[in-house]
Protein backbone atom coordinates (compact mmCIF):
# COMPACT_ATOMS: atom_id res chain seq x y z
CA UNK A 1 0.00 0.00 0.00
CA UNK A 2 1.25 3.45 -0.92
CA UNK A 3 0.76 6.82 0.73
CA UNK A 4 -0.36 10.15 -0.66
CA UNK A 5 -1.74 13.50 0.45
CA UNK A 6 -4.93 15.30 -0.54
CA UNK A 7 -3.48 18.60 -1.74
CA UNK A 8 -2.74 21.46 0.62
CA UNK A 9 0.17 21.59 3.07
CA UNK A 10 0.96 24.22 5.74
CA UNK A 11 2.92 26.98 4.10
CA UNK A 12 4.43 28.57 7.19
CA UNK A 13 6.25 27.16 10.18
CA UNK A 14 7.80 28.57 13.33
CA UNK A 15 10.71 30.98 13.15
CA UNK A 16 11.56 33.77 10.70
CA UNK A 17 12.71 31.41 7.93
CA UNK A 18 9.49 29.42 8.22
CA UNK A 19 7.49 32.57 7.63
CA UNK A 20 9.29 33.89 4.59
CA UNK A 21 6.32 33.32 2.28
CA UNK A 22 3.97 35.20 4.59
CA UNK A 23 6.39 38.10 4.73
CA UNK A 24 6.98 38.08 0.97
CA UNK A 25 3.23 38.23 0.25
CA UNK A 26 2.84 41.14 2.67
CA UNK A 27 5.75 42.94 0.98
CA UNK A 28 4.32 42.24 -2.48
CA UNK A 29 0.96 43.64 -1.38
CA UNK A 30 2.75 46.80 -0.23
CA UNK A 31 4.54 46.88 -3.62
CA UNK A 32 7.91 46.54 -1.92
CA UNK A 33 8.90 43.52 -4.01
CA UNK A 34 8.09 42.48 -7.56
CA UNK A 35 5.86 39.62 -8.71
CA UNK A 36 9.06 37.78 -9.75
CA UNK A 37 10.56 38.19 -6.26
CA UNK A 38 7.38 36.77 -4.75
CA UNK A 39 7.37 33.88 -7.20
CA UNK A 40 10.93 32.98 -6.19
CA UNK A 41 9.88 32.67 -2.55
CA UNK A 42 6.75 30.70 -3.49
CA UNK A 43 8.78 28.20 -5.50
CA UNK A 44 11.34 27.95 -2.72
CA UNK A 45 8.63 27.07 -0.18
CA UNK A 46 6.95 24.76 -2.69
CA UNK A 47 10.24 22.89 -3.09
CA UNK A 48 10.58 22.71 0.67
CA UNK A 49 7.15 21.16 1.25
CA UNK A 50 7.61 18.70 -1.60
CA UNK A 51 10.96 17.66 -0.16
CA UNK A 52 9.40 17.35 3.31
CA UNK A 53 6.70 14.98 2.07
CA UNK A 54 9.23 12.90 0.15
CA UNK A 55 11.65 12.83 3.09
CA UNK A 56 8.97 11.38 5.35
CA UNK A 57 8.36 8.72 2.72
CA UNK A 58 5.13 9.79 1.03
CA UNK A 59 4.90 7.96 -2.29
CA UNK A 60 2.80 10.44 -4.26
CA UNK A 61 3.30 14.08 -3.25
CA UNK A 62 1.64 17.39 -4.16
CA UNK A 63 2.87 20.96 -4.50
CA UNK A 64 1.04 21.71 -1.24
CA UNK A 65 -1.17 24.24 -3.09
CA UNK A 66 1.35 26.75 -1.82
CA UNK A 67 0.41 29.48 -4.31
CA UNK A 68 -3.37 29.16 -3.94
CA UNK A 69 -5.19 32.04 -2.29
CA UNK A 70 -7.98 29.52 -1.70
CA UNK A 71 -9.33 26.46 -3.56
CA UNK A 72 -11.94 28.51 -5.37
CA UNK A 73 -10.37 31.80 -6.31
CA UNK A 74 -7.12 30.19 -7.48
CA UNK A 75 -9.18 28.93 -10.43
CA UNK A 76 -11.84 31.63 -10.64
CA UNK A 77 -9.25 34.37 -10.96
CA UNK A 78 -7.56 32.57 -13.84
CA UNK A 79 -10.63 31.69 -15.93
CA UNK A 80 -12.57 34.00 -18.23
CA UNK A 81 -16.11 34.91 -17.26
CA UNK A 82 -15.61 35.01 -13.49
CA UNK A 83 -15.06 37.59 -10.82
CA UNK A 84 -13.81 36.87 -7.33
CA UNK A 85 -16.36 38.10 -4.80
CA UNK A 86 -17.23 38.20 -1.09
CA UNK A 87 -15.56 36.21 1.70
CA UNK A 88 -17.35 33.02 2.73
CA UNK A 89 -16.55 30.29 5.22
CA UNK A 90 -14.96 27.26 3.54
CA UNK A 91 -17.21 24.36 4.57
CA UNK A 92 -17.10 23.93 8.36
CA UNK A 93 -13.48 25.00 8.70
CA UNK A 94 -11.90 28.06 10.27
CA UNK A 95 -10.80 29.23 6.81
CA UNK A 96 -12.46 31.45 4.25
CA UNK A 97 -12.60 31.69 0.48
CA UNK A 98 -13.59 34.31 -2.02
CA UNK A 99 -16.85 33.38 -3.70
CA UNK A 100 -16.61 33.16 -7.52
CA UNK A 101 -19.26 35.03 -9.44
CA UNK A 102 -20.03 34.32 -13.09
CA UNK A 103 -20.20 37.48 -15.18
CA UNK A 104 -20.06 35.83 -18.62
CA UNK A 105 -19.39 32.46 -20.24
CA UNK A 106 -16.69 30.59 -18.30
CA UNK A 107 -13.67 29.63 -20.37
CA UNK A 108 -10.19 28.26 -19.78
CA UNK A 109 -7.77 31.12 -20.41
CA UNK A 110 -4.53 29.24 -19.95
CA UNK A 111 -2.75 26.87 -17.56
CA UNK A 112 -3.60 27.48 -13.90
CA UNK A 113 -1.60 24.77 -12.17
CA UNK A 114 0.99 23.56 -14.67
CA UNK A 115 3.81 25.84 -13.56
CA UNK A 116 3.45 24.74 -9.93
CA UNK A 117 3.15 21.09 -10.93
CA UNK A 118 6.35 21.36 -12.98
CA UNK A 119 8.14 23.04 -10.07
CA UNK A 120 7.01 20.24 -7.75
CA UNK A 121 7.95 17.49 -10.19
CA UNK A 122 11.40 18.98 -10.72
CA UNK A 123 12.09 19.12 -6.99
CA UNK A 124 10.69 15.76 -5.95
CA UNK A 125 12.22 12.33 -5.87
CA UNK A 126 8.69 10.92 -5.52
CA UNK A 127 6.12 11.39 -8.30
CA UNK A 128 4.07 14.58 -7.95
CA UNK A 129 0.31 14.74 -8.34
CA UNK A 130 -1.36 17.98 -9.46
CA UNK A 131 -4.70 18.71 -7.84
CA UNK A 132 -7.67 20.61 -9.28
CA UNK A 133 -10.85 21.75 -7.59
CA UNK A 134 -13.64 19.88 -9.35
CA UNK A 135 -16.38 21.37 -11.51
CA UNK A 136 -19.20 20.63 -9.09
CA UNK A 137 -17.40 22.22 -6.13
CA UNK A 138 -16.41 25.29 -8.15
CA UNK A 139 -20.05 25.77 -9.15
CA UNK A 140 -21.64 24.85 -5.81
CA UNK A 141 -19.50 27.37 -3.92
CA UNK A 142 -20.00 30.14 -6.47
CA UNK A 143 -22.51 32.93 -6.01
CA UNK A 144 -25.13 31.31 -8.25
CA UNK A 145 -24.74 27.73 -7.04
CA UNK A 146 -24.41 24.50 -9.01
CA UNK A 147 -26.63 24.97 -12.04
CA UNK A 148 -26.08 22.23 -14.64
CA UNK A 149 -24.94 24.85 -17.12
CA UNK A 150 -22.28 26.27 -14.81
CA UNK A 151 -20.98 22.83 -13.77
CA UNK A 152 -20.62 21.99 -17.45
CA UNK A 153 -18.76 25.24 -18.19
CA UNK A 154 -16.32 24.50 -15.37
CA UNK A 155 -15.93 20.92 -16.62
CA UNK A 156 -14.98 22.14 -20.08
CA UNK A 157 -12.49 24.61 -18.64
CA UNK A 158 -10.95 21.92 -16.42
CA UNK A 159 -10.71 19.55 -19.38
CA UNK A 160 -8.21 21.95 -20.94
CA UNK A 161 -6.29 22.12 -17.66
CA UNK A 162 -6.12 18.33 -17.37
CA UNK A 163 -4.88 18.17 -20.96
CA UNK A 164 -2.19 20.77 -20.20
CA UNK A 165 -1.11 18.85 -17.08
CA UNK A 166 -0.94 15.57 -19.00
CA UNK A 167 1.12 17.30 -21.70
CA UNK A 168 3.47 18.54 -18.97
CA UNK A 169 4.00 14.93 -17.92
CA UNK A 170 1.79 14.60 -14.84
CA UNK A 171 1.59 10.87 -14.07
CA UNK A 172 -1.43 11.22 -11.81
CA UNK A 173 -4.05 13.97 -11.70
CA UNK A 174 -6.51 14.47 -8.85
CA UNK A 175 -9.88 16.20 -8.89
CA UNK A 176 -11.09 17.40 -5.48
CA UNK A 177 -14.85 17.47 -5.03
CA UNK A 178 -15.54 18.22 -1.36
CA UNK A 179 -18.95 19.72 -2.18
CA UNK A 180 -20.22 16.25 -3.10
CA UNK A 181 -20.40 15.42 0.61
CA UNK A 182 -23.17 17.99 0.96
CA UNK A 183 -25.39 15.75 -1.20
CA UNK A 184 -26.93 12.33 -0.87
CA UNK A 185 -26.73 11.50 -4.56
CA UNK A 186 -24.46 12.35 -7.47
CA UNK A 187 -25.37 15.49 -9.40
CA UNK A 188 -27.32 14.69 -12.55
CA UNK A 189 -25.02 13.78 -15.42
CA UNK A 190 -21.91 13.71 -13.25
CA UNK A 191 -20.59 10.62 -15.04
CA UNK A 192 -20.61 12.59 -18.28
CA UNK A 193 -19.11 15.62 -16.52
CA UNK A 194 -16.27 13.51 -15.11
CA UNK A 195 -15.65 11.99 -18.54
CA UNK A 196 -15.44 15.45 -20.03
CA UNK A 197 -12.95 16.66 -17.41
CA UNK A 198 -10.75 13.62 -17.98
CA UNK A 199 -10.98 13.61 -21.78
CA UNK A 200 -7.44 14.89 -22.31
CA UNK A 201 -5.75 12.96 -19.52
CA UNK A 202 -3.73 10.71 -21.82
CA UNK A 203 -1.95 8.05 -19.81
CA UNK A 204 -2.22 9.84 -16.50
CA UNK A 205 -3.85 7.99 -13.62
CA UNK A 206 -6.67 9.88 -11.94
CA UNK A 207 -8.16 10.25 -8.48
CA UNK A 208 -11.45 11.77 -7.37
CA UNK A 209 -11.21 12.88 -3.72
CA UNK A 210 -14.18 13.82 -1.53
CA UNK A 211 -13.77 15.19 1.99
CA UNK A 212 -15.30 17.12 4.91
CA UNK A 213 -17.97 14.46 5.25
CA UNK A 214 -19.27 11.08 4.24
CA UNK A 215 -20.54 9.82 0.89
CA UNK A 216 -22.11 6.51 1.96
CA UNK A 217 -25.42 6.92 0.10
CA UNK A 218 -23.65 7.56 -3.22
CA UNK A 219 -20.64 5.28 -2.77
CA UNK A 220 -21.69 2.82 -5.48
CA UNK A 221 -22.21 5.64 -7.98
CA UNK A 222 -18.87 7.24 -7.10
CA UNK A 223 -17.14 3.91 -7.68
CA UNK A 224 -18.62 3.76 -11.19
CA UNK A 225 -17.06 7.07 -12.23
CA UNK A 226 -14.13 6.96 -14.68
CA UNK A 227 -11.40 7.59 -12.10
CA UNK A 228 -8.68 5.09 -11.19
CA UNK A 229 -8.80 5.89 -7.49
CA UNK A 230 -11.57 7.16 -5.21
CA UNK A 231 -10.39 9.20 -2.21
CA UNK A 232 -12.57 9.15 0.89
CA UNK A 233 -12.51 11.14 4.11
CA UNK A 234 -13.05 8.40 6.67
CA UNK A 235 -12.64 10.64 9.73
CA UNK A 236 -15.20 13.41 9.37
CA UNK A 237 -16.89 11.09 6.88
CA UNK A 238 -16.65 8.01 9.10
CA UNK A 239 -20.24 7.25 8.13
CA UNK A 240 -18.89 6.03 4.77
CA UNK A 241 -17.21 3.10 6.54
CA UNK A 242 -20.58 1.45 6.99
CA UNK A 243 -21.29 1.52 3.25
CA UNK A 244 -17.73 0.45 2.49
CA UNK A 245 -18.05 -2.57 4.74
CA UNK A 246 -20.70 -4.06 2.46
CA UNK A 247 -19.20 -3.05 -0.90
CA UNK A 248 -16.79 -4.98 -3.08
CA UNK A 249 -14.46 -2.42 -4.59
CA UNK A 250 -12.54 -3.08 -7.79
CA UNK A 251 -10.63 0.17 -8.07
CA UNK A 252 -8.07 1.62 -5.71
CA UNK A 253 -9.17 3.70 -2.77
CA UNK A 254 -7.38 6.50 -0.97
CA UNK A 255 -8.23 5.80 2.67
CA UNK A 256 -8.41 9.18 4.39
CA UNK A 257 -7.94 7.76 7.86
CA UNK A 258 -5.55 10.22 9.48
CA UNK A 259 -7.37 13.25 10.88
CA UNK A 260 -6.11 16.34 9.07
CA UNK A 261 -8.19 18.65 11.24
CA UNK A 262 -7.12 17.73 14.74
CA UNK A 263 -3.68 17.83 16.31
CA UNK A 264 -4.27 14.63 18.27
CA UNK A 265 -1.94 12.00 16.82
CA UNK A 266 -3.26 8.62 15.74
CA UNK A 267 -1.68 5.32 16.65
CA UNK A 268 -0.28 3.88 13.38
CA UNK A 269 -1.29 0.41 14.49
CA UNK A 270 -4.93 1.49 14.81
CA UNK A 271 -4.79 3.14 11.38
CA UNK A 272 -3.29 -0.01 9.84
CA UNK A 273 -5.93 -2.15 11.52
CA UNK A 274 -8.69 0.04 10.07
CA UNK A 275 -7.28 -0.45 6.56
CA UNK A 276 -6.74 -4.18 7.01
CA UNK A 277 -10.42 -4.60 7.80
CA UNK A 278 -10.95 -4.05 4.06
CA UNK A 279 -8.22 -6.29 2.70
CA UNK A 280 -10.70 -8.77 1.26
CA UNK A 281 -12.94 -6.13 -0.30
CA UNK A 282 -10.53 -3.52 -1.65
CA UNK A 283 -7.41 -4.00 -3.82
CA UNK A 284 -4.91 -2.61 -1.31
CA UNK A 285 -2.02 -2.92 -3.79
CA UNK A 286 -3.68 -0.20 -5.89
CA UNK A 287 -4.80 1.84 -2.89
CA UNK A 288 -3.32 4.66 -0.84
CA UNK A 289 -3.34 5.72 2.76
CA UNK A 290 -3.97 9.47 3.07
CA UNK A 291 -4.94 12.23 5.47
CA UNK A 292 -8.67 12.92 5.65
CA UNK A 293 -8.27 16.18 3.71
CA UNK A 294 -5.61 18.78 2.95
CA UNK A 295 -3.07 19.21 5.74
CA UNK A 296 -3.00 22.99 5.86
CA UNK A 297 -5.50 23.02 8.73
CA UNK A 298 -2.71 21.78 11.00
CA UNK A 299 0.45 23.49 12.20
CA UNK A 300 3.40 22.56 10.02
CA UNK A 301 5.24 20.37 12.53
CA UNK A 302 2.10 18.41 13.32
CA UNK A 303 1.33 17.95 9.60
CA UNK A 304 4.70 16.29 9.22
CA UNK A 305 4.02 14.06 12.23
CA UNK A 306 0.70 13.04 10.70
CA UNK A 307 2.58 12.04 7.54
CA UNK A 308 4.91 9.93 9.67
CA UNK A 309 1.85 8.17 11.10
CA UNK A 310 0.63 7.52 7.55
CA UNK A 311 3.91 6.11 6.35
CA UNK A 312 4.34 3.89 9.41
CA UNK A 313 0.76 2.63 9.12
CA UNK A 314 1.22 1.87 5.41
CA UNK A 315 4.34 -0.16 6.23
CA UNK A 316 2.38 -2.13 8.82
CA UNK A 317 -0.32 -2.83 6.23
CA UNK A 318 2.38 -3.92 3.79
CA UNK A 319 3.90 -6.30 6.35
CA UNK A 320 0.52 -7.76 7.23
CA UNK A 321 -0.41 -8.42 3.62
CA UNK A 322 3.01 -9.55 2.35
Amino acid at each position, binding site marked *: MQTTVVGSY*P*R*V*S*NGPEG*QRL*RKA*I*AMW*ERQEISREDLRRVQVDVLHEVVAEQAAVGVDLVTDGNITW*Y*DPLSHFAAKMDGLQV*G*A*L*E*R*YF*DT*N*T*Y*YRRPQRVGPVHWRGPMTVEDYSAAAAASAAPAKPVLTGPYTLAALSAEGASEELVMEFAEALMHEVKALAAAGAPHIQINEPALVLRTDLPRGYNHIAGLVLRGKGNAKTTLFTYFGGVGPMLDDLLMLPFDVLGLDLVQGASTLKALAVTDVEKGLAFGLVDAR*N*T*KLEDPKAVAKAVLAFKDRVPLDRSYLAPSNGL*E*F*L*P*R*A*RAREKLEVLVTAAKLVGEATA
Partner: protein
Amino acid sequence: MSNALRTTTVGSFAKPDYLQRARNRHSAGKVTAKELDGLTRQATKEVVEVQKELGLDVFVHGEMERGDMVGYFGENLPGMRPGELVRSYGNRYYHKPVIASEVRWDAPVTVDLWRYAQSLTDKPMKGMLTGPYTIVEWSFDEHYGSRREAVLAMARAIHHEAEALAKAGAKYIQVDEPAIHTRPGEDFDLAVEAMGVVVKGVSAEFHTHICYGDVPKIYPGMLRLPVTQIHLAFKNANFELLHLLEADPWDSKKELGLGVLDVHDHHVESVEEVKEGIKHALRLVPADRLWIEPDCGLKTRTPEEVRKKLRVMVAARDEVRRDLAL
Protein backbone atom coordinates in the same frame (compact mmCIF):
# COMPACT_ATOMS: atom_id res chain seq x y z
CA MET B 1 -25.74 61.28 23.02
CA SER B 2 -28.50 60.84 20.45
CA ASN B 3 -29.63 57.26 20.23
CA ALA B 4 -30.17 57.51 16.48
CA LEU B 5 -27.48 55.67 14.51
CA ARG B 6 -24.90 55.29 17.24
CA THR B 7 -21.39 54.48 16.05
CA THR B 8 -18.88 52.02 17.39
CA THR B 9 -16.31 49.56 16.03
CA VAL B 10 -16.11 45.80 16.22
CA GLY B 11 -13.03 45.42 18.39
CA SER B 12 -9.54 45.20 17.01
CA PHE B 13 -7.42 48.02 15.61
CA ALA B 14 -4.19 47.68 13.63
CA LYS B 15 -1.17 47.41 15.88
CA PRO B 16 1.42 50.15 15.41
CA ASP B 17 4.78 48.96 14.11
CA TYR B 18 6.55 49.64 17.41
CA LEU B 19 4.14 47.35 19.24
CA GLN B 20 4.32 44.60 16.65
CA ARG B 21 8.12 44.72 16.82
CA ALA B 22 8.02 44.63 20.63
CA ARG B 23 5.65 41.65 20.58
CA ASN B 24 8.01 39.79 18.26
CA ARG B 25 10.97 40.66 20.46
CA HIS B 26 9.04 39.63 23.56
CA SER B 27 8.41 36.22 21.97
CA ALA B 28 12.16 35.97 21.40
CA GLY B 29 12.83 36.87 25.05
CA LYS B 30 14.36 40.24 24.18
CA VAL B 31 11.64 42.48 25.66
CA THR B 32 10.34 42.02 29.20
CA ALA B 33 6.66 41.55 30.03
CA LYS B 34 6.71 44.89 31.84
CA GLU B 35 8.17 46.71 28.83
CA LEU B 36 5.62 45.08 26.53
CA ASP B 37 2.79 46.02 28.87
CA GLY B 38 3.92 49.65 28.79
CA LEU B 39 3.92 49.71 25.00
CA THR B 40 0.56 47.92 24.90
CA ARG B 41 -0.91 50.65 27.08
CA GLN B 42 0.68 53.34 24.93
CA ALA B 43 -0.91 51.82 21.82
CA THR B 44 -4.24 51.43 23.62
CA LYS B 45 -4.15 55.12 24.51
CA GLU B 46 -3.54 55.97 20.85
CA VAL B 47 -6.55 53.88 19.82
CA VAL B 48 -8.70 55.72 22.33
CA GLU B 49 -7.41 59.06 21.00
CA VAL B 50 -8.33 58.09 17.43
CA GLN B 51 -11.87 57.27 18.50
CA LYS B 52 -12.13 60.59 20.36
CA GLU B 53 -10.88 62.46 17.30
CA LEU B 54 -13.41 60.67 15.09
CA GLY B 55 -16.26 61.24 17.53
CA LEU B 56 -17.43 57.63 17.90
CA ASP B 57 -20.15 56.96 20.44
CA VAL B 58 -19.04 53.73 22.09
CA PHE B 59 -15.34 52.92 22.23
CA VAL B 60 -13.25 49.79 22.10
CA HIS B 61 -9.79 49.36 23.58
CA GLY B 62 -8.40 48.04 20.29
CA GLU B 63 -7.15 44.61 21.47
CA MET B 64 -3.52 45.66 21.40
CA GLU B 65 -2.72 42.87 23.86
CA ARG B 66 -4.19 40.13 21.66
CA GLY B 67 -2.54 38.30 18.81
CA ASP B 68 -5.99 37.27 17.72
CA MET B 69 -9.43 36.76 19.17
CA VAL B 70 -9.12 33.03 19.89
CA GLY B 71 -5.40 32.55 20.48
CA TYR B 72 -5.52 35.17 23.26
CA PHE B 73 -7.98 33.13 25.31
CA GLY B 74 -5.97 30.03 24.49
CA GLU B 75 -3.01 31.70 26.16
CA ASN B 76 -4.96 32.77 29.25
CA LEU B 77 -7.62 30.22 30.13
CA PRO B 78 -6.50 27.28 32.28
CA GLY B 79 -7.00 24.05 30.35
CA MET B 80 -5.92 25.59 27.07
CA ARG B 81 -2.48 25.54 25.52
CA PRO B 82 -1.19 28.17 23.08
CA GLY B 83 -1.06 26.77 19.59
CA GLU B 84 1.03 27.13 16.48
CA LEU B 85 0.29 29.03 13.31
CA VAL B 86 -2.44 27.93 10.93
CA ARG B 87 -3.91 29.89 8.04
CA SER B 88 -7.36 31.41 8.22
CA TYR B 89 -7.56 32.93 4.74
CA GLY B 90 -5.34 34.62 2.20
CA ASN B 91 -2.18 35.63 3.99
CA ARG B 92 -3.72 35.67 7.49
CA TYR B 93 -2.61 33.20 10.14
CA TYR B 94 -3.36 32.70 13.80
CA HIS B 95 -2.03 30.63 16.66
CA LYS B 96 -4.73 27.98 16.88
CA PRO B 97 -4.88 26.90 20.52
CA VAL B 98 -5.36 23.42 21.90
CA ILE B 99 -7.95 22.43 24.49
CA ALA B 100 -5.70 20.13 26.47
CA SER B 101 -7.71 19.55 29.66
CA GLU B 102 -10.80 20.77 31.54
CA VAL B 103 -11.31 24.47 30.71
CA ARG B 104 -11.51 26.70 33.79
CA TRP B 105 -11.55 30.34 34.77
CA ASP B 106 -9.35 31.27 37.71
CA ALA B 107 -8.99 35.04 37.39
CA PRO B 108 -9.96 37.94 35.12
CA VAL B 109 -8.20 37.97 31.76
CA THR B 110 -9.43 41.14 30.06
CA VAL B 111 -10.46 43.40 32.93
CA ASP B 112 -7.17 45.13 33.67
CA LEU B 113 -6.70 46.61 30.20
CA TRP B 114 -10.41 47.37 29.90
CA ARG B 115 -10.19 49.35 33.13
CA TYR B 116 -7.15 51.26 31.85
CA ALA B 117 -8.86 52.06 28.53
CA GLN B 118 -12.04 53.19 30.28
CA SER B 119 -9.99 55.50 32.50
CA LEU B 120 -8.93 57.42 29.37
CA THR B 121 -12.42 58.48 28.30
CA ASP B 122 -15.91 59.32 29.51
CA LYS B 123 -17.39 57.44 26.56
CA PRO B 124 -18.52 53.88 27.32
CA MET B 125 -15.77 51.32 26.66
CA LYS B 126 -17.01 47.92 25.44
CA GLY B 127 -15.73 44.81 27.13
CA MET B 128 -14.53 42.47 24.39
CA LEU B 129 -14.88 38.71 24.61
CA THR B 130 -14.82 35.87 22.15
CA GLY B 131 -17.81 33.57 22.35
CA PRO B 132 -17.60 29.99 23.56
CA TYR B 133 -18.74 28.41 20.32
CA THR B 134 -16.11 30.28 18.31
CA ILE B 135 -13.27 29.58 20.76
CA VAL B 136 -14.01 25.86 20.67
CA GLU B 137 -14.61 25.75 16.94
CA TRP B 138 -11.35 27.56 16.20
CA SER B 139 -9.27 25.46 18.62
CA PHE B 140 -8.04 21.89 18.44
CA ASP B 141 -9.97 19.83 21.00
CA GLU B 142 -7.71 17.12 22.37
CA HIS B 143 -9.67 16.75 25.60
CA TYR B 144 -13.47 16.66 25.37
CA GLY B 145 -14.13 14.90 22.09
CA SER B 146 -17.68 16.25 22.29
CA ARG B 147 -18.43 19.70 20.92
CA ARG B 148 -21.34 20.14 23.32
CA GLU B 149 -19.24 19.44 26.40
CA ALA B 150 -16.42 21.66 25.20
CA VAL B 151 -18.68 24.58 24.25
CA LEU B 152 -20.62 24.53 27.52
CA ALA B 153 -17.42 24.32 29.59
CA MET B 154 -16.05 27.27 27.62
CA ALA B 155 -19.33 29.15 28.14
CA ARG B 156 -18.95 28.80 31.90
CA ALA B 157 -15.42 30.22 31.73
CA ILE B 158 -16.48 33.15 29.52
CA HIS B 159 -19.45 33.80 31.83
CA HIS B 160 -17.03 34.40 34.71
CA GLU B 161 -15.07 36.83 32.56
CA ALA B 162 -18.25 38.70 31.55
CA GLU B 163 -19.23 38.88 35.22
CA ALA B 164 -15.82 40.35 36.09
CA LEU B 165 -16.11 42.97 33.34
CA ALA B 166 -19.59 43.96 34.49
CA LYS B 167 -18.40 44.22 38.10
CA ALA B 168 -15.58 46.49 36.91
CA GLY B 169 -18.20 48.75 35.34
CA ALA B 170 -18.51 47.68 31.70
CA LYS B 171 -21.90 48.81 30.44
CA TYR B 172 -21.53 47.05 27.09
CA ILE B 173 -19.96 43.64 26.60
CA GLN B 174 -19.48 42.23 23.13
CA VAL B 175 -19.28 38.47 22.73
CA ASP B 176 -17.99 37.72 19.24
CA GLU B 177 -19.34 34.60 17.55
CA PRO B 178 -18.05 34.66 13.97
CA ALA B 179 -18.06 30.86 13.86
CA ILE B 180 -21.68 30.54 14.99
CA HIS B 181 -22.95 29.53 11.55
CA THR B 182 -20.33 26.87 10.93
CA ARG B 183 -22.88 24.06 11.29
CA PRO B 184 -26.20 25.89 11.30
CA GLY B 185 -28.40 22.79 11.33
CA GLU B 186 -26.40 20.74 13.76
CA ASP B 187 -25.11 23.25 16.29
CA PHE B 188 -27.02 26.51 16.27
CA ASP B 189 -29.16 25.60 19.27
CA LEU B 190 -25.98 24.75 21.17
CA ALA B 191 -24.50 28.15 20.36
CA VAL B 192 -27.67 29.89 21.58
CA GLU B 193 -27.64 27.81 24.77
CA ALA B 194 -23.98 28.68 25.33
CA MET B 195 -24.67 32.39 24.90
CA GLY B 196 -27.38 32.00 27.53
CA VAL B 197 -24.81 30.58 29.93
CA VAL B 198 -22.44 33.51 29.24
CA VAL B 199 -24.96 36.28 29.86
CA LYS B 200 -27.00 34.73 32.68
CA GLY B 201 -27.31 37.11 35.61
CA VAL B 202 -24.68 39.52 34.27
CA SER B 203 -25.73 43.14 34.50
CA ALA B 204 -24.61 44.60 31.15
CA GLU B 205 -25.87 45.11 27.61
CA PHE B 206 -24.58 42.29 25.46
CA HIS B 207 -23.69 42.65 21.81
CA THR B 208 -22.60 39.87 19.52
CA HIS B 209 -20.75 40.03 16.23
CA ILE B 210 -21.20 37.50 13.43
CA CYS B 211 -19.49 37.64 10.05
CA TYR B 212 -18.64 35.94 6.74
CA GLY B 213 -20.60 32.74 6.72
CA ASP B 214 -23.97 31.34 5.90
CA VAL B 215 -25.98 34.07 7.63
CA PRO B 216 -29.18 33.25 5.69
CA LYS B 217 -29.19 29.80 7.31
CA ILE B 218 -29.31 31.29 10.83
CA TYR B 219 -31.78 34.09 10.13
CA PRO B 220 -34.26 34.69 11.72
CA GLY B 221 -33.12 31.99 14.19
CA MET B 222 -30.31 34.27 15.37
CA LEU B 223 -32.92 36.54 16.94
CA ARG B 224 -33.16 33.93 19.71
CA LEU B 225 -29.67 34.89 20.91
CA PRO B 226 -30.06 36.45 24.36
CA VAL B 227 -28.26 39.71 23.49
CA THR B 228 -29.28 43.33 22.95
CA GLN B 229 -27.46 43.77 19.67
CA ILE B 230 -26.50 41.50 16.79
CA HIS B 231 -23.86 42.92 14.49
CA LEU B 232 -23.43 41.56 10.96
CA ALA B 233 -20.98 42.25 8.13
CA PHE B 234 -23.08 43.85 5.41
CA LYS B 235 -20.67 45.82 3.25
CA ASN B 236 -18.53 42.84 2.19
CA ALA B 237 -21.42 41.65 0.01
CA ASN B 238 -22.74 45.14 -0.79
CA PHE B 239 -25.60 45.03 1.71
CA GLU B 240 -27.26 42.05 0.01
CA LEU B 241 -27.96 40.52 3.45
CA LEU B 242 -30.49 43.29 4.07
CA HIS B 243 -32.81 41.36 1.77
CA LEU B 244 -33.15 38.80 4.56
CA LEU B 245 -34.70 41.46 6.76
CA GLU B 246 -37.09 42.39 3.98
CA ALA B 247 -38.37 38.82 3.90
CA ASP B 248 -38.43 38.34 7.69
CA PRO B 249 -38.73 41.53 9.77
CA TRP B 250 -36.02 42.30 12.33
CA ASP B 251 -37.03 41.65 15.93
CA SER B 252 -38.19 45.06 17.13
CA LYS B 253 -36.62 44.54 20.56
CA LYS B 254 -33.12 43.91 19.25
CA GLU B 255 -30.57 46.33 17.92
CA LEU B 256 -28.88 45.71 14.60
CA GLY B 257 -25.18 46.49 14.17
CA LEU B 258 -24.83 47.45 10.51
CA GLY B 259 -21.39 46.73 9.04
CA VAL B 260 -20.78 49.50 6.50
CA LEU B 261 -17.01 49.24 5.88
CA ASP B 262 -15.34 46.28 4.16
CA VAL B 263 -12.32 45.56 6.34
CA HIS B 264 -10.84 43.22 3.76
CA ASP B 265 -10.59 45.83 1.03
CA HIS B 266 -7.96 48.56 0.78
CA HIS B 267 -10.48 50.68 -1.13
CA VAL B 268 -11.97 53.41 1.06
CA GLU B 269 -15.73 53.53 0.68
CA SER B 270 -17.41 56.73 -0.47
CA VAL B 271 -19.72 58.61 1.89
CA GLU B 272 -22.51 58.11 -0.64
CA GLU B 273 -22.29 54.31 -0.73
CA VAL B 274 -22.24 54.13 3.07
CA LYS B 275 -25.22 56.50 3.27
CA GLU B 276 -27.10 54.35 0.78
CA GLY B 277 -26.55 51.28 2.95
CA ILE B 278 -27.66 53.12 6.10
CA LYS B 279 -30.78 54.46 4.42
CA HIS B 280 -31.62 51.01 3.12
CA ALA B 281 -31.27 49.59 6.65
CA LEU B 282 -33.39 52.41 8.09
CA ARG B 283 -36.32 51.16 6.05
CA LEU B 284 -36.05 47.92 8.06
CA VAL B 285 -34.81 48.91 11.53
CA PRO B 286 -35.62 52.12 13.46
CA ALA B 287 -32.75 54.55 13.95
CA ASP B 288 -32.58 54.11 17.70
CA ARG B 289 -31.96 50.39 17.21
CA LEU B 290 -29.53 50.72 14.34
CA TRP B 291 -25.82 51.02 15.08
CA ILE B 292 -23.28 51.98 12.44
CA GLU B 293 -20.00 50.01 12.48
CA PRO B 294 -17.35 48.47 10.25
CA ASP B 295 -17.94 44.90 9.04
CA CYS B 296 -15.40 43.35 11.39
CA GLY B 297 -12.29 44.10 13.43
CA LEU B 298 -10.01 46.71 11.86
CA LYS B 299 -6.67 45.01 12.46
CA THR B 300 -6.57 43.92 8.81
CA ARG B 301 -6.15 47.51 7.66
CA THR B 302 -3.28 49.95 8.13
CA PRO B 303 -3.74 52.71 10.73
CA GLU B 304 -4.10 55.25 7.91
CA GLU B 305 -6.76 53.17 6.13
CA VAL B 306 -8.60 52.77 9.42
CA ARG B 307 -8.73 56.54 9.94
CA LYS B 308 -9.92 57.18 6.40
CA LYS B 309 -12.59 54.48 6.50
CA LEU B 310 -13.89 55.50 9.92
CA ARG B 311 -14.03 59.17 8.87
CA VAL B 312 -16.26 58.14 5.96
CA MET B 313 -18.44 56.09 8.32
CA VAL B 314 -18.96 58.97 10.74
CA ALA B 315 -19.51 61.51 7.93
CA ALA B 316 -22.12 59.25 6.33
CA ARG B 317 -23.88 58.77 9.65
CA ASP B 318 -23.89 62.54 10.27
CA GLU B 319 -25.28 63.28 6.83
CA VAL B 320 -28.04 60.70 7.17
CA ARG B 321 -28.97 62.19 10.54
CA ARG B 322 -29.15 65.64 8.91
CA ASP B 323 -30.99 64.43 5.80
CA LEU B 324 -33.63 62.67 7.85
CA ALA B 325 -33.64 65.09 10.80
CA LEU B 326 -32.86 62.28 13.23
